[in-house]
């Protein structure tokens, strides 16, 4: 059946329920949050209606600057680690049989769907003194006695790479599945080793995909809020943790909302950038 433009009011019928739901429960909450970011804090309740820029003014503090800087550096590191591991992996995966691919995809999806709480719990067990990986090292004779590897920056980074790795593979997968292999075959026929062919042909061909993926994973990592709390020290807290902390424990909703609005702006700008990069790839 050909698609037709709606002609009568009744044709719009199917749109009513989704439209109302999305507007009432997404657009309105989102706008409320933006509005609250201009309100005054009310220590006794949630907030009092007002128009003030004070909440945004607090961004200028050294503390906020440090948290923001840390969040950005951490997310960049996570994104780079994930893409460095996932890109060759996904490339090799797409060259496997359907069966092997399916099994890996199911496993990746299962890990991806895991609650951050569970990931945090699992890694804190693995890095703990009593049940952790250092017991294995002691058994192998590499260490004298088991030690706790957390809380530490390394633990936070590892946990977040673990969380974002399946996401990275699933973002890269479609692009690598559709990769035209003729160029690669040419390189191989002309005598390139598989590894050289990979770096000289596959990597340049997907340069824009790589950039877009790094940005997507960066935004994904920005959203991590429990792992820094479970695996790190307070100085390893990210913007997401700070927002939660201000909203729930300091009951300073307006400041939390202002930070959230700021996070939205960063994320939207970056997602917009990926769309731009993607468009250039399609055009070329």
């Amino acid at each position, binding site marked *: 059946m050909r698609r037709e433009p709606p002609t009568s009011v009744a044709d719009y019928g199917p749109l009513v329920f989704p439209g109302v739901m999305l507007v009432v429960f997404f657009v309105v909450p989102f706008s409320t949050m933006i509005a609250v970011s201009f309100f005054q804090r009310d220590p006794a309740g949630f907030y009092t209606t007002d128009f003030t820029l004070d909440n945004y003014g607090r961004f200028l503090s050294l503390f906020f600057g440090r948290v923001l800087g840390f969040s950005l550096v951490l997310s960049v590191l996570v994104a780079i680690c994930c893409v460095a591991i996932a890109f060759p992996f996904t490339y090799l995966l797409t060259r496997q049989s359907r069966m092997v691919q399916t099994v890996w995809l*199911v496993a990746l999806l299962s890990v991806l769907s895991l609650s951050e709480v569970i990931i945090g719990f699992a890694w804190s*067990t693995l890095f703990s003194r009593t049940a952790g990986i250092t017991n294995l090292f002691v058994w192998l004779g590499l260490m004298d006695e088991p030690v706790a590897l957390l809380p530490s920056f390394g633990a936070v980074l590892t946990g977040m790479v673990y969380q974002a790795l399946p996401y990275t593979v699933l973002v890269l997968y479609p692009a690598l599945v559709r990769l035209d292999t003729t160029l690669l075959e040419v390189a191989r026929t002309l005598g390139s080793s598989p590894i050289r062919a990979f770096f000289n042909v596959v990597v340049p061909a997907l340069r824009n995909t790589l950039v877009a993926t790094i940005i997507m994973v960066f935004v994904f990592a920005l959203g991590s809020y429990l792992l820094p709390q479970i695996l790190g020290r307070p100085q390893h807290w990210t913007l*997401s943790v700070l927002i939660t902390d201000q*909203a729930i424990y300091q009951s300073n909703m307006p400041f939390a909302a202002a930070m959230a609005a700021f996070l939205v702006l960063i994320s939207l700008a970056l997602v917009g950038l990926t769309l731009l990069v993607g468009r250039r790839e399609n055009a070329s």
Partner: protein
Amino acid sequence: MRGTFLRRLYFFAVGLFLALPLVVVAGVSFNEKQDLTFPPIGFSLSWYGQIFADAEWRRALIASVLLAVSAAAIAVAVALPLAWFLWRRIAPWANVFQLLGVAPFILPPVITALGMLTFWATSGFYGQPWTAAISHGIFFVTLPLVTLSLGFASIDRSLVEAAATMGADDRTLLKTVVLPLILPYLVSGYAFAFVLSLNEYIVAYMTVGFTTETLPIKIFNALRYGYTPTMAAVSIFFVALAALVFGLIARFGDIRKLLGAMASEG
């Protein structure tokens, strides 16, 4: 072959990285005493029994399942008519709704969570169990929306045309031709939303965290008072459940196709 060996090694390393924490957690969950040791001392399944036997864990499990069942239903109920309309009609401005459906999933989750918190606090329903179901339903609407858009795109339009020529109106068309064709996509969309809702923490915490404990909230709260093997058992239970659901989707559908098109949509 050196190349094959290197490839195997690389796959093994990635697999090990992904599996290691889960293996240790599984080991811990079999401990006989309430110690957190690995390798486990003794072997016992009693911590798995605890999930169902202990009143608090059972309450959290029931709350989580109820939330996931209703949230996934809401997500599908919003996504289905929207995807149908976008497939059936030419209305470029309606893509705004598609964008709205995908947005909560792409933005950092804390934003949706805080938006929902301010909204429910302002409207005075803060803490009601059903507010979490609606919040999750909207938060995860992306998943059924993407799978259903994919499902509609795979329908051969001439089939529907034939039915229309025979005099079927939209309602009959939907019931007899379209729905049976997109059913696998509907089910996988529901399953994706269900599993993710079951595991979701921050939105649930900010909406009903002080009145209801879902399993992830319960685990996190318990974490502050020290570790118990029950937490390990619950974690393994969740991993197994997710693997089962995605395994079923792979068994009865084409998960490669589903994922190949999913990211290009998003």
